């Protein structure tokens, strides 16, 4: 790639600026005239980022302007490209083939074409093709941190280190998972011997049970009376006994027949008095009615006498009335009334007792009707009891007759014996099956856990391989880059004759050079500034050869702090570099700028 021109609009101190470049271009300007801005703008135009990673592209804009743009034209492989970038808008790319007059904008596959034209990453290009004094200070003071080598530090491998850490953590997770799986493994409590024993027990029990079933069937087929007639008789006997007991209980609760007969006699006697009582009741009622009539008449008489008491003549016969006689008559009538009342009360009490007696007779009549039924019931019950007693005795003797011989001699029932044994065997079979089921479940869980553990092992292995591969790749990357850098340092050292008195070597994985001179080993900080600048330039060029560069070497004020002789050396060196790459140098040192007679030269005066 060869940069032909750069056009700036509202960038830094420039309102508008157009610059053209040759293979070796020197840009001279006093301080604050925009030299560094040009370098930043060129980097932004090519890579879309700020060269200083601590700044944003918006920081490139001219003061008071919202946005700025940079257009760079460059040639590559007989084609010319025009790349325009703005701090606010999307970039645009146009291409022109050799001999063509018009620019053809690139719309499709923009990113791919741009990557083909400028394949370097911004970080790599910053490291290999752009030189800033501030960067030099960083290089001189930087000490490799942790286990990061200087080459890793220079090639921006922090990201790779973070990635390495993430892979290691992923491995840790895989190991944690495996540990959890191992911890969750069921403990093996059953041993194979025990399992075999249980299996045999089960087979034995099943065999015995089959044998018992056969025996039981034989026993059942021996005769029906054993199980049916005997049990039928026994059941009948028990039923009759139960009924008898129930009837006897009823007999005990109800009155006896003799008592009932006595009660019936008394009732009949009472019923015989029934007519007499009825007659005396009627007589008493009649007497009571007559007395009531007499009393009413007396009361009417007394009322008449009382009316006559205040009168002097009788209203009937009109004869004179004597008050004393009238009073005597009233008293006499009152006395009779009292006597009648007493007689009436006596009759009423007599009537009451007669009525009670009459009610008793009515009750007795009812009872006289009931008692015969009760007596009949008692007779029937007694007859049934007698019958049941006979039947129970008969059944008892029959049951005794049908009773099997083992029952008489005190032997156990063989069927019962078989039944008991059968029950035991069935329980034994269930127990064995449960135990075997548990063992099978335990084995299944063990097998499942084993599979999970295998999968977890595989995950750990994959993570381990990934970590080891990344470690190896990082180490190899260092050594491979180092190897290339070492070769390139050897090639460039013939131009850097100024450093010839140092024996510069680079260790296997570390870019920090081993610097020896006259048998003395130097530290980097022990070298002079000019020596360090040259060393750094050489390493930068060598890194560019190792990692790739965009055929460009841009230096921002590299001669600062160098004496005239060193400036001459540097100018000569850069002219040598310009034979291999396009070189653009900015400086505020006119004498240094004058040391490039073959270079195209531009001067900045601080005006847009």
């Amino acid at each position, binding site marked *: 790639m060869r940069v032909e021109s750069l056009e700036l609009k509202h960038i830094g101190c420039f309102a508008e600026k157009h610059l053209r470049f040759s293979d070796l271009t020197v840009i001279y300007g006093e301080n604050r005239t925009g030299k560094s801005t040009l370098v930043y703008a060129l980097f932004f135009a090519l890579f879309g980022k700020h060269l200083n990673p601590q700044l944003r592209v918006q920081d490139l804009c001219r003061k008071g302007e919202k946005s700025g743009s940079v257009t760079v034209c460059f040639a590559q492989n007989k084609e010319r490209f025009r790349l325009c970038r703005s701090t606010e808008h999307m970039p645009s790319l146009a291409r022109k083939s050799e001999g063509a007059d018009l620019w053809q904008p690139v719309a499709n596959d923009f990113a791919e074409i741009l990557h083909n034209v400028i394949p370097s990453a911004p970080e790599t290009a910053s490291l290999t093709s752009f030189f800033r004094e501030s960067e030099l200070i960083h290089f001189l003071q930087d000490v490799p941190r942790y286990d990061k080598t200087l080459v890793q530090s220079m090639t921006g491998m922090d990201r790779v280190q973070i990635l390495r850490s993430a892979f290691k953590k*992923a491995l840790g997770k895989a190991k944690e998972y495996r540990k959890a799986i191992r911890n969750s493994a069921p403990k093996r409590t059953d041993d194979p011997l025990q399992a075999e024993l249980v299996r045999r027990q089960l087979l034995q029990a099943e065999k015995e049970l089959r044998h018992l079933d056969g025996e039981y069937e034989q026993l059942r087929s021996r005769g029906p009376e054993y199980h049916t007639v005997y049990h039928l008789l026994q059941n009948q006997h028990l039923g009759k006994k139960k009924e008898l007991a129930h009837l006897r209980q009823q007999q005990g609760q109800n009155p006896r027949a003799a008592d009932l007969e006595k009660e019936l006699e008394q009732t009949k006697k009472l019923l015989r008095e029934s007519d007499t009582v009825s007659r005396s009741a009627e007589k008493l009622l009649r007497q009571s009615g007559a007395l009531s009539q007499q009393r009413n008449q007396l009361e009417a008489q007394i009322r008449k006498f009382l009316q006559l008491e205040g009168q002097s003549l009788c209203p009937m016969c009109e004869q004179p009335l004597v008050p004393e006689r009238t009073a005597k008559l009233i008293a006499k009538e009152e006395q009779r009334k009292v006597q009648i009342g007493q007689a009436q009360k006596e009759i009423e009490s007599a009537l009451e007792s007669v009525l009670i007696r009459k009610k008793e007779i009515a009750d007795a009549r009812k009872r006289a009707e009931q008692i015969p039924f009760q007596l009949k019931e008692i007779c029937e019950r007694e007859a049934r009891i007698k019958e049941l007693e006979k039947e129970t005795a008969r059944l008892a003797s029959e049951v005794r007759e049908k009773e099997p011989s083992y029952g008489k001699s005190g032997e156990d029932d063989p069927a019962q014996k078989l039944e008991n044994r059968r029950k035991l065997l069935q329980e034994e079979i269930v127990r064995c099956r449960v135990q075997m089921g548990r063992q099978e479940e335990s084995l299944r869980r063990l097998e499942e856990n084993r599979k999970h553990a295998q999968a977890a092992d595989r995950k750990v292995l994959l993570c381990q391989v990934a970590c080891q591969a990344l470690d190896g790749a*990082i180490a190899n990357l260092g050594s491979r880059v180092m190897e290339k850098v070492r070769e390139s340092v050897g090639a460039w050292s013939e131009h850097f004759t100024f450093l010839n008195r140092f024996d510069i070597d680079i260790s296997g994985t570390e870019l920090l050079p081993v610097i020896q001179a006259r048998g003395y080993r130097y530290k980097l900080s022990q070298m002079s500034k000019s020596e360090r600048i040259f060393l750094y330039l050489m390493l930068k060029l060598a890194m560019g050869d190792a990692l790739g560069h965009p055929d460009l070497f841009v230096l921002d004020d590299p001669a600062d702090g160098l004496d005239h002789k060193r400036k001459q050396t540097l100018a000569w060196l850069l002219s040598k570099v310009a034979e291999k790459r396009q070189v653009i140098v900015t400086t505020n040192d006119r004498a240094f700028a004058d040391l490039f007679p073959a270079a195209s030269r531009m001067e900045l005066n601080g005006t847009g």
Partner: protein
Amino acid sequence: MTAKSPDEILIELFCQQVMELGERNDLSAQERERIVTVFRQAMANSFMDDQQIYLKLSGEAV
């Protein structure tokens, strides 16, 4: 501009390492490919964390 970028070199070296280690540890071609794919994804996506890497490496996530 012939040299490869550090990322490209790193990926290439990683692939070589995975092939060697995979052969030594009897990893299948699919597993080796999976590791390389996860690494490429992790290189391209700086937000991929250890959990995602673990899940992808173990094949639980694609």
